[in-house]
């Protein structure tokens, strides 16, 4: 029951991470220049609930993220009641639960052996220690495998856009039809579908890979039930560490046991529910299946006081040492490409309000919230632009979208503060720059003599404009002199919003492009003498 509730809540908040549906009904936004468009719903909630995100943000970025009280509450809850987060709250857990047990792939004996406690379950401790160690040394890779971040990223960047594109293409087909009824169905359908799946076709770099990875992880449940939860989940590992003193525990009466192994067959956590073996509190997800299935009532969940110390979480020396070693090496491996100590890649354009790169990498959980909320679909997961250390961190791609001049939604949703919350006024007046535009005169239509244009200047939102038009002459390809208005970029005024690149008629490789140099957040990455 609660699983369904939290899962639906998660999906609901995910869908709501976008421009609010009825913002345009509030005139005060138009009248009052001070008021920014804000989201009504607490879309960060699940990230505030997630203890792993809280702890790594604290260790790595020295940041007490807003709402960390929820995560603290979960840890306290785990202390007393074990991994009930995994069994009752975690939405990814719910998905795995459904994937494992709807028409289970394994029959009886194979299921029993699959649910035996297995050494591979130590792997999640390896991952946990890796992430914690790396965070300590300044690289926060947790979000790649943290369940909340993983689920959000997969759904928001792959699953929903995938389904949305499919539905949209169908609706577009029917819209073009000559049959009026089909047209109306299409319009109506679009009105219903767009708020959930996005207006327009959403696209994200490497979204195909995010989707395949998600499907693969779900598929693993057919091989071993709740594979992720047992073997991979670093949050499960963390909560397992705290479960030792749980007052809610499984009490066994070995005399009643007939060795039917029904409990083991239904055990989701591979936590040794069979009487005769010691129950593993740090693996148990409190699904209560074993308790429900046992025909002899040989096992029972009881609240006991004082807390009985269960056996230590089975981490294994290899997992711990391996985790420490890997955790130490990753931050340094990440710095090998020089992006932190030299000037970063020109293609890496961070969202407005982003912290300087070193701090950014400490806090960004690669969750995809900023990518989901961006109204123009400009923010994408970086692949190589930020190096290995910045894989899947946000990066603006200006041919896909641009940064709306007064929009500050990304900072408003970032759960860890890697992107600072800005007010619209602060963004415009400081001004917060995310890069600078430059014109490729060989490609620009008026500069290359291919015709008049000025689209870049027309759309430049700053006042005074950062692009000026100067009447001049150009040589046309035929050799004639033509009178055209020629665009010039004024770097002092340019904020790097990218609408010029987005609207430039030279499709695919625009004649005016934005590079990262000039971004406000970096002291070194500047072009001009004075800021």
């Amino acid at each position, binding site marked *: 029951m609660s699983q369904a509730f939290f899962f639906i809540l998660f999906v609901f908040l995910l869908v709501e991470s976008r421009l609010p549906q009825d913002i345009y*009904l509030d005139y005060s936004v*138009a009248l009052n220049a001070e008021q920014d468009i804000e989201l009504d719903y607490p879309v960060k909630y699940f990230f505030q609930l997630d203890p792993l995100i809280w702890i790594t943000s604290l260790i790595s970025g020295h940041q007490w993220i807003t709402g960390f009280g929820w995560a603290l509450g979960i840890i306290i809850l785990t202390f007393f009641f074990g991994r009930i987060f995994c069994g009752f709250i975690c939405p990814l857990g719910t998905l795995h639960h459904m994937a494992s047990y709807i028409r289970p792939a394994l029959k009886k004996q194979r299921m029993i052996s699959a649910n035996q406690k297995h050494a591979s379950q130590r792997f999640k401790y390896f991952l946990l220690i890796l992430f914690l160690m790396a965070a300590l040394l300044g690289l926060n890779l947790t979000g790649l495998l943290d369940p909340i971040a993983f689920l959000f990223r997969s759904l928001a960047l792959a699953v929903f856009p995938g389904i949305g594109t499919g539905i949209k293409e169908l609706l577009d087909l029917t819209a*073009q039809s000559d049959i009026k009824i089909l047209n109306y169905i299409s319009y109506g359908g679009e009105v219903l579908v767009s708020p959930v799946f996005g207006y327009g076709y959403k696209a994200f770099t490497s979204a195909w890979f995010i989707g395949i990875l998600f499907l693969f992880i779900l598929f693993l449940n057919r091989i071993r039930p709740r594979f992720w939860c047992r073997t991979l989940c670093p949050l499960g590992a963390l909560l397992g560490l705290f479960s030792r003193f749980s007052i809610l525990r499984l009490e066994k009466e070995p005399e009643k046991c007939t060795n039917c192994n029904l409990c083991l067959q239904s055990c989701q956590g591979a936590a040794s529910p069979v009487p005769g073996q010691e129950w593993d509190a740090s693996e148990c997800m409190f699904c209560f299946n074993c308790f429900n299935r046992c025909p002899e009532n040989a096992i029972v969940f009881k609240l006991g006081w004082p807390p009985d110390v269960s056996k230590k979480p089975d981490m294994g020396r290899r997992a711990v040492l391996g985790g420490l070693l890997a955790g130490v090496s990753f931050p340094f491996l990440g710095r090998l490409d020089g992006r932190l100590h030299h000037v970063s890649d020109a293609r890496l354009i961070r969202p407005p309000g982003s912290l300087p790169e070193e701090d950014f990498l400490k806090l960004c959980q690669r969750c995809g919230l900023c990518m989901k909320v961006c109204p123009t679909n400009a923010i994408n997961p970086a692949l190589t632009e930020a190096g290995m250390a910045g894989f899947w961190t946000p990066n603006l791609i200006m041919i896909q979208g641009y940064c709306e001049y*007064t929009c500050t939604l990304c900072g408003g949703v970032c759960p860890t503060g890697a992107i600072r919350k800005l007010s619209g006024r602060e963004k415009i007046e400081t001004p917060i720059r995310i890069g600078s535009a430059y014109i490729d005169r060989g490609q620009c239509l008026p500069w290359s003599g291919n015709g008049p*244009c000025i689209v870049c200047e*027309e759309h430049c939102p700053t006042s005074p404009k950062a692009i000026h038009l100067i009447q001049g002459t150009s040589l046309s390809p035929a050799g004639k002199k033509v009178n055209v208005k020629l665009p010039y970029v004024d770097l002092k005024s340019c904020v790097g919003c990218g609408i010029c690149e987005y609207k*430039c*008629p030279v499709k695919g490789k625009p004649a005016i492009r934005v590079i990262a140099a000039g971004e406000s957040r970096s002291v070194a990455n500047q072009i001009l003498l004075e800021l």
Partner: protein
Amino acid sequence: MNCHPITRRESIKKLFKITGGLALTGVMTCPFQKTISAWAGSTNKKFIIEGIGQNPEYSVKALVEKVFEAAGGIGKFVSKQDVVVIKPNISWARHPDLAATTNPEVLKAVVELCQEAGAKKVRIADHTIHDARRCFAITGAGMVAKNTGADLVYPRPSLMRNMKLQGHRLDVWPVFLPLVEADKIINLPVAKVHSLSGLTLGMKNWIGAVGGRRSALHQDIHLTIVDLAQFFNPTVTLIDATRIMVANGPSGGSRSDVAVSNRLILSDDPVAADAKAAGLFNLRPQDIGFMQLGEKWGLGTTEFQKLRQTKVII
């Protein structure tokens, strides 16, 4: 004057004959109306009305109403059960006082007038440049739609249809459907300067009515403006000159780019409306390419004396 008193029956018969005859002639001349007004010099003179709000406390709504009254009342343009679509300029996610978009008070007044005239449905449609939801919010158009019950159409690819524009430069182009599928169309631009075409007024407003590669239109901006203007046949053009952008157009961005001019220009001649508005910027229609081309291709005239001119001052 006939001394013989007319009976009720006879008078009713006479009335039916007269209205019947008129209706018949009306129907028969319908197909020829466009030709007549375009070529032969209309039997019905076109009008141009300039409304000025001189009193510093004037109400924008009152000015809109007075301007339409001077044109013969909204009933002349909008009939009962009409589907009316209004094409404002809400393409930029800018606050109304930056004059990058149509004044929402003017928009609201026009919507309410149409509703009073008995329109079945009033739609507001514009293919925005910036993200449409942000435009609707920040320009105030969304609030207008909410308060008046007008239909604010979200611009999306499924509502674009390729149509033959039959222009001199543009052949087939995707058009935003709600602006064609309507009984009456009201063009409601805001008056601004423009770095390429000089000014952006009524005729240029139609660029917001099409989709496709709009950025390419700049390569022959004056001709493409006229091509689009001759395709869309608005019932009237109402140029919002309550606040005009006099520098850094068309996107502006600062209150120093705005001049408060408190004017409205209403006309059923698109070229004349634009030409009149040019005067507000101290520019001559002869110097503006698309106005000259528009006159040349018969869309209208820049010679105001050929029209019924009226000034309304409140």
